[in-house]
Every structure is written in structure tokens, then in C-alpha cells.
């Protein structure tokens, strides 16, 4: 990719992280690493965001929160799992309250290694995320009725686009929020 087609806005949620990756996500936006030069803005609103940055593993209580933030984001969207815990549980893998990495609740597009993750790798991941975002947008343009949805989404029946429900004969709108 020789140019960035879009200024990606990110939303950050701290799963059960230790803050180490958290503060590195913020550090990536501040003057030394300055991801803002790529137009990366940290927003607090899921509806404004293109990229969902998750740090830390998933536990019993925050799984619905992560799911909900993901559902509120508009398509196309990209999920970046930052750090060892978000990738697969990390040092807390064997703890009783940790379900695993981010991919145990939502589909993940990019995994960033490190404990704690380094700001350079976060910038790498966000830039890679822009590429994925572009592909997803293209796929949506080719076939507006078919949105790039994950299997887990389809399985749980959450967030089924209306257009698709209408396509199914006899569908009574089940699964539409």
C-alpha cells in the first residue's frame, strides 16, 4: 500500500488487561510515536470508529461489553487484538476468570504480539488494519446485500442486516434488533 486511503478512527477498550498495553496504545498516539500523522484519532464513540483496538483478555463480565461495542460499530470494521493477553490470554491464561483471547467473543483481523506490546507494533497493526478495511469496503461495494460478516455473528444471530433477512423466504424478522 503506497498511500493511506482513509484516516482510521480507533476505539479502544481495555478488556482484562494490566494497563501495560493500554498505556502503550495511548503512547502510540502521543508525540514520540505520533500515529496522528496518519490521521489516527482515538474516539470514544463506537459509531465513529473504524478500528476496534482491544487490549487484555476476555473475562466473564466484560465479554458482553466487548460484544456490544463491536455490534455498535458500523461496517466495514476491523478488530485489532493488542498484546499477548488479547491474542490468547497471555500470563492469565490459566486464571479461573479468563475465558481467553479476544477471538473467543468477536472475530479478530490482526494480532499484535508483545507483553507489553510496543507502540511501533500497534502502529503497524493499525496501518495493516486500514488495508483490511479497504478490502472489506470493496467487498461491500461489489455486493451491497452481502456484508462481510463473521461466522460467530451469523451463529449467534446478532446484528443480521435487514436486507439479508428479507432475502430469506418466510423470515419473520427474527434476529433483527
Amino acid at each position, binding site marked *: 500500500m503506497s498511500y493511506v486511503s482513509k484516516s482510521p478512527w480507533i476505539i479502544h477498550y*481495555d478488556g482484562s488487561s494490566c*494497563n*501495560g498495553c493500554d*498505556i502503550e496504545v495511548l*503512547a502510540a498516539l502521543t*508525540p514520540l510515536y505520533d500515529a496522528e500523522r496518519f490521521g489516527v484519532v482515538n474516539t470514544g464513540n463506537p459509531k465513529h470508529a473504524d478500528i476496534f483496538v482491544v487490549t487484555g483478555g476476555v473475562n466473564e463480565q466484560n465479554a458482553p*461489553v466487548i460484544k456490544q461495542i463491536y455490534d455498535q460499530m458500523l461496517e466495514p470494521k476491523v478488530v485489532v487484538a493488542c498484546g499477548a493477553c488479547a491474542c490468547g490470554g497471555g500470563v492469565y491464561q490459566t*486464571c479461573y476468570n*479468563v475465558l481467553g483471547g479476544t477471538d473467543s467473543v468477536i472475530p479478530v483481523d490482526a494480532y499484535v504480539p508483545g507483553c*507489553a506490546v510496543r507502540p511501533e507494533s500497534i502502529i503497524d497493526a493499525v496501518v495493516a488494519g486500514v488495508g483490511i478495511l479497504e478490502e472489506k469496503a470493496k467487498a461491500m461495494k461489489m455486493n451491497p446485500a452481502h456484508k462481510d460478516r463473521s461466522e460467530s455473528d451469523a451463529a449467534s444471530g446478532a446484528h443480521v442486516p435487514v436486507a439479508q433477512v428479507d432475502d430469506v423466504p418466510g423470515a419473520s424478522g427474527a434476529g433483527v434488533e
Partner: protein
Amino acid sequence: MSKRTVIPFGPQHPVLPEPVHLDLVLEDERVVNAIPRIGYVHRGLEKLVEKRDYTQFVYVTERICGICSFGHSLGYSQCIEQLMGIEITDRAEYLRVIFHELSRIHSHLLWLGLLADGFGFEALFMHAWRLREQVLDIFEECTGGRVIFSACDVGGFRQEVSNETLKGIVIVLERLREEYRTIAKTLLDDSSVKSRMVGVGYLSHEQAKEYSMVGPFARASGLEVDERLLGVGAYGELSSFEPILSDQGDCYARCDVRVKEVLQSIDIINELVAKIPEGDVMVPVKGSPEKDAETMMTLEQPRGQAFYYAKGNGSKFLARMRIRTPTSQNIAGMVAALSGAELADVPMVILTIDPCISCTER
């Protein structure tokens, strides 16, 4: 009586870097009660002592919190040394305190940045974090890690840091002090910043005592609590130590106390680097804690007093490890400070207690 409304606050909120949920009971625009709801970051680390032996557990304690990571490994190591009667070398004690104070500088600069971001002063946020990077560079140069660096271990300090490097640290910090003064001046003297903080979230001295508050939050209400006064380790070698107090008890006072503590930490590091003795930094650790031996100790973290309790079971695995972090002690105070605040001031009140949720819930 006006109608009461309940507004949910968090867990995902623009001013909160970490998830915490509050149910705010409002009467018009005024908070009359706040009910905290935590548990979003609960992992169950204390249970991990059954699976990791006492030398491995130091890495787990570091990952309780990425901001206070050095403090937790220091507290855990001191607690195990106290349990097993290990005396570490003087040089290691000095290095530990130097790095602990460096993490206090990094933690306070981080907090000042978040505070500035909280009231919408983004340039100040960026400048505070720019200065903080200089401290992280010191960590990276000495240990290889930026926020979690596994430098402290049971038996001493893992990395030998040469006297030349330590002198270099002092030079960096002196330069940082000059730049920091401009930021501190803006935070403390700027009228728009002041109008956001003065008189907001007031807690009296009596309330601070009633709610057993700790750290800068308590010191801003004039309560003299600082574990560094106990003089354990290299803190006892300082020529003088006076905790920074303020009797205002509002958000501005909490900011004021932390701003001054950064300068105090730089002074402590300067003094210790000038006095540091020569010698080894690690002593060999043999054996394991005795069965039913138990001990507890406290430590002053950037956010206040932290508590460690350890109990041995005769093997390499501990029977129980308990870590009580400063924020859990301050939750009662936070709820008290919130009642009576305006809805628009709620983020300021929450930020000024410097909550560290992943510490609290472990």
C-alpha cells in the same frame, strides 16, 4: 423535591482508560449518590500462586498493573524476603528505590496527561506524555522493557546499572525538570484549568480519615499518610523526607500534590545516586518459605499505600498471596467525593483519585 434520575457511567467511557461502572443517582444536575460497580478486569491472579512457584510469581505480580508494575514486583519481593529472612545488598536497595521513584515520575506524568485530556486540554496531554517518554527511555536503556521490565526479583535487582548510567539518569532528569516546570505552571496557574478544578469534589480532613484514604488523594486533604516515612530500605538513608500535603481537599489540591511529588522524586533520585554504595545487586536465594510462616508489609505506590500478605506452605508454592492496592482503599472516598458534585464534574472527580482498576481487581 425534584425527580431523581439514574445515569449509568462507564464501563466504556471517553475519559476512562479503564473499565469501571458507576450508577449515578441525580437530582437535577447534582449527584446525590454513586454506586460503584467493578469486576470488569477481575482475572483471579491471587489464585495463580497455586500454579506458579514463588520465584515465578514475581512476573505475575508485575502484570497486576502495567503502570505500577515495578512497585508490585518490589512489594512482592520485599514481602517474600521478609518471610524468608533474606537480606539483600545495600546497592540493590538503592537501585530499587531509584527505579521505584522513576516509576512514580512516569505514573504521575501519565496521570497529569490524562487529567488534561479529561478537561479537554489536549496540547497539555501531549506534552505531559512527551516528557514521560524520557523516563521510559531510561527504563528501556537500563532493562530493555518500557512499561513491564522485570528488573526486581526476590534476592535483589536483576540488572546491574553502572554508576555512569546512573549519572546519566540524573542529567536526563535535570533536563526533564526544566521542561516540566512549564507544564506544571500551566496546570497550577492557568485560569481556565483552575476554573475546572478549584472547589470540585471537596473532601475534608475528617472525611479522609473516616474513609481510611491513602496516597495523594488523602494527602490533598491534609492527612499525613506516606509509607516512605517508615524508612524501610533506602528511604531510611535520605537526609530528610517530608510528605507533600495540602489542606484544600479539592481536585486542584490533588493535582497540586502530584505535580509537586514529581519534583520531590527527582530530588530523591539525585540524592540516592550521589550516595549509592558499590557491591553486588543479587544474593542467591535458596530454600522455600516455611509452613505457616506468614508476614505482611506495606509500600508507598504512586497511588498510595499498597499492602502485601504472604503465607508459606513449606514447599516452593505459597499458601496465600494477598495484594491490596491503593485504589480499592480509595473507592469509599471516591463515592463520598462524588456525592454533591455536578454531573459535568464527575469525570474530573474520578480522574483525580487516579483510579487504577486493574490493580483493584487483580
